[in-house]
């Protein structure tokens, strides 16, 4: 174990940060080269991703930051407590290598990258986060907080039930979220009042409205590459939320007019692909970029980092604390399709509805080696796809670029077979 601070730690931290810039730039350059600026609205999001990798996010400096290790954290509460949430989930290969030192060999890349980001102090915000909120979702994430690494940011364990259908599980989650709201007040030193929480819910609802509009537009006018859409959702935590929302609105406006069309998907007959499984988090766009470079068109994705983060809404009946907090809790539990819940038939239904709505030709199922939950669900989803007569490509991969050659052959063959079926 590397003690902090020491020379080796400093070298590791600096090197990882530099490599993160290189990784991000190579992905972004590729994306921007392909699209050649056809959708001007995307420039803002490319810019955000670039400044994220350089740790230059322009968030409000005076505010306190609270890191979240998973999308299951009710961010509205964090806003209401006067802090700004920031994501630690990372798609960086260099970060996953930095984190891998502390984790078992078979850990998933996403978890080791998350740990690496925290450990090397690479959370791209002006001041150090005051806490890391760690929900008890998958086993690997949940045990992160116990790894001795000499870190100085306290972890907060947010208890999430392992099932979501029973009344008991829902009650447990309600009380867990309620307790979280009280503890947050202690962490930030600011009270969560009725009006602040209402403002926070509506602020996030605006972002959700914009995001859902983008989702609808992709359904009706598929003029945007799926990789770009994944990037848009990924940048949600990289800027002030209102500014992000505004830019998504103008992107929607541009796309809805149908003026711009990405040259990468000019072919209307390109096989329409639905991407699901372990989430592609920036800069790990290995799979989506490859699929679209090979002539596939990712029309939709079922990732926690995009759809699950923003799609589900909050419905409050009485705008008092006693109703707002359970309403918030519901948003993060009931419609959630994370495989950490069992049973998780809602995921099947969601995939089927996407297949129908987006007229999907084939499903690509990504799992990161070591992500048992997505691996375990793959057989169920596989047989479901067989039933529906939708070809599925199951890909087990990680953040390293080593398997690119092997993957490109498989993806090319898959896309060709889809084209042949059309």
């Amino acid at each position, binding site marked *: 174990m590397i003690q902090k601070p020491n020379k080796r730690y400093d070298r590791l931290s600096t090197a990882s940060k530099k490599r993160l810039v290189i990784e991000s730039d190579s992905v972004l350059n590729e994306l921007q080269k392909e699209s050649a600026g056809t959708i001007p609205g995307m420039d803002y999001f490319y*810019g955000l991703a670039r400044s994220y990798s350089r740790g230059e996010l*322009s968030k*409000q400096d005076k505010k306190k930051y609270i890191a979240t290790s998973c999308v299951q954290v009710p961010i509205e509460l964090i806003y209401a407590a006067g802090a700004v949430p920031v994501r630690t989930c990372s798609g960086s290969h260099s970060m996953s290598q930095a984190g891998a030192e502390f984790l078992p060999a078979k850990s998933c890349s996403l978890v080791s990258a998350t740990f690496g980001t925290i450990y090397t102090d690479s959370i791209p915000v002006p001041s150090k986060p005051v806490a890391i909120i760690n929900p008890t979702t998958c086993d690997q994430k949940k045990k992160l907080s116990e790894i001795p690494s000499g870190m100085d940011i306290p972890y907060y364990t947010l208890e999430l039930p392992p099932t979501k*259908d029973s*009344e008991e599980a829902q009650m447990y989650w309600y009380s867990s979220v309620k307790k979280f709201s009280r503890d947050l007040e202690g962490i930030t030193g600011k009270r969560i009042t009725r*009006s602040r929480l*209402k*403002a926070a819910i*509506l602020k996030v*609802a*605006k972002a*959700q*409205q914009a995001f*859902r509009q983008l989702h*609808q537009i992709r359904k009706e006018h598929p003029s945007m590459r799926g990789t770009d859409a994944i990037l848009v959702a990924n940048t949600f935590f990289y*800027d*002030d939320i*209102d*500014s992000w929302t*505004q830019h998504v609105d103008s992107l929607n406006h541009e796309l809805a007019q149908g003026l711009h069309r990405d040259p990468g998907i000019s072919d209307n007959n390109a096989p329409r692909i639905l991407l699901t499984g372990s989430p592609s988090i920036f800069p790990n766009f290995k799979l989506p970029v490859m699929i679209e470079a090979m002539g596939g068109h990712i029309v939709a994705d079922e990732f926690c980092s995009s759809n699950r983060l923003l799609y*589900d*809404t909050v*419905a409050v*009946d*009485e*705008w*008092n604390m*006693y*109703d707002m907090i*359970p*309403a918030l809790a*519901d*948003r993060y539990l*009931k*419609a959630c399709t994370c495989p950490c819940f069992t049973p998780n038939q*809602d995921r099947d*239904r*969601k995939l*089927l*509805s996407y297949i*129908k709505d987006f007229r999907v030709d084939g499903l690509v199922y990504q799992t990161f080696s070591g992500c048992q939950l997505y691996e375990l669900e793959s057989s169920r989803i596989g047989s479901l796809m067989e039933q529906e007569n939708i070809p599925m490509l199951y890909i087990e991969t990680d953040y390293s670029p080593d398997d690119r050659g092997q993957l490109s052959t498989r993806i090319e063959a898959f896309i060709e077979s889809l084209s042949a079926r059309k």
Partner: protein
Amino acid sequence: MNNLQRYINNANISRFRLIFQILAFLLLIYGGYLSIHIGTSIPTFACPYNQECPGTCYLISAQHQLHNTWSDLFGFRGKAFLTGFITFVLLFLVINKAWCGYVCPLGTIQDWITKLRNFLGVKFSRYDELSFKRLKIIKFVLLILLVLIPLGMSNSLLGLPLFSHDLSAPFCQICPGRVITPLFIGDTSQLLVDFTNPTTMIMSTLGILVLALFFIGSFFKKRFFCFFCPMSALHFLFSSIAFLRLNKKGENCTRCGNCYRVCDVGIKAIAEDLEHTYMVKDDCMLCLKCVEACPENDCLKASFLTIPVFSSTEEGFFKRNLHLDHEMQNPSNQSNNEDITKNDDSKTK
């Protein structure tokens, strides 16, 4: 037509309901002053104990008409009963259980009490799943009793002696409507315990107890009384063939639970049931709050004789929800604008 449909789907039905309820309340409480008469088979609490009520709740008519011997019931009195019954069913079929959600004055009073509680910031309570299942039977038991007791006053049921005539219209004796609706025209004569004989004493005491429960219960639990209302049970028998319908398209449902959250009577099936399409359950009052809270296009839909009346849409959901944002003070908007300009500045640097 599409524009009209869109306008309606974006509308705030709860506000419309609030206004409609007030008008219906005024009609059913004070209609008599205008010499309006709307019949004796009204499928909601139009209580004739209130002198100025323009009609008669079907429950009281039914209890009186059933207070007859078998031979009479199968004779000319049966005809009267049948006419009343058919009128009731026909009236009911038009708007289904919206009679409860939009017209019933007792329901309206409970909604006002809920508004008061909300204003005071007192938390509402909810039954857990098991209590919900057990307690919902009560209204059917009451319905059976209000049919059997009047029959038992003129006929011997299973060899029992005839019931006392003081039990006439037994449900009305414990119904809070009998006491509450006259109060609105300043008549407090029903607010008493009748000491004439043990039967009247027991019944009128029960009535006062139910009245107290009505106010206390509906303060803490939305639509507390409706859950036990035999009228609601009687409605349910014909609900599946009614013209105004609430349907669900299970494949569009994400099970986000929004509809169940806002449901005043706490019907869980609306969120969980993905197979059945007809969603008017025994406790439903067709207030359509669930449709308002559903963010999925066309998942929940109210229709009248297959013509869609009000559907859930994403646009409508956000419009209703974010409308609240404009009602909030400007300072928050101002600070947002500052943030944006700050960001722009930092980018230009």
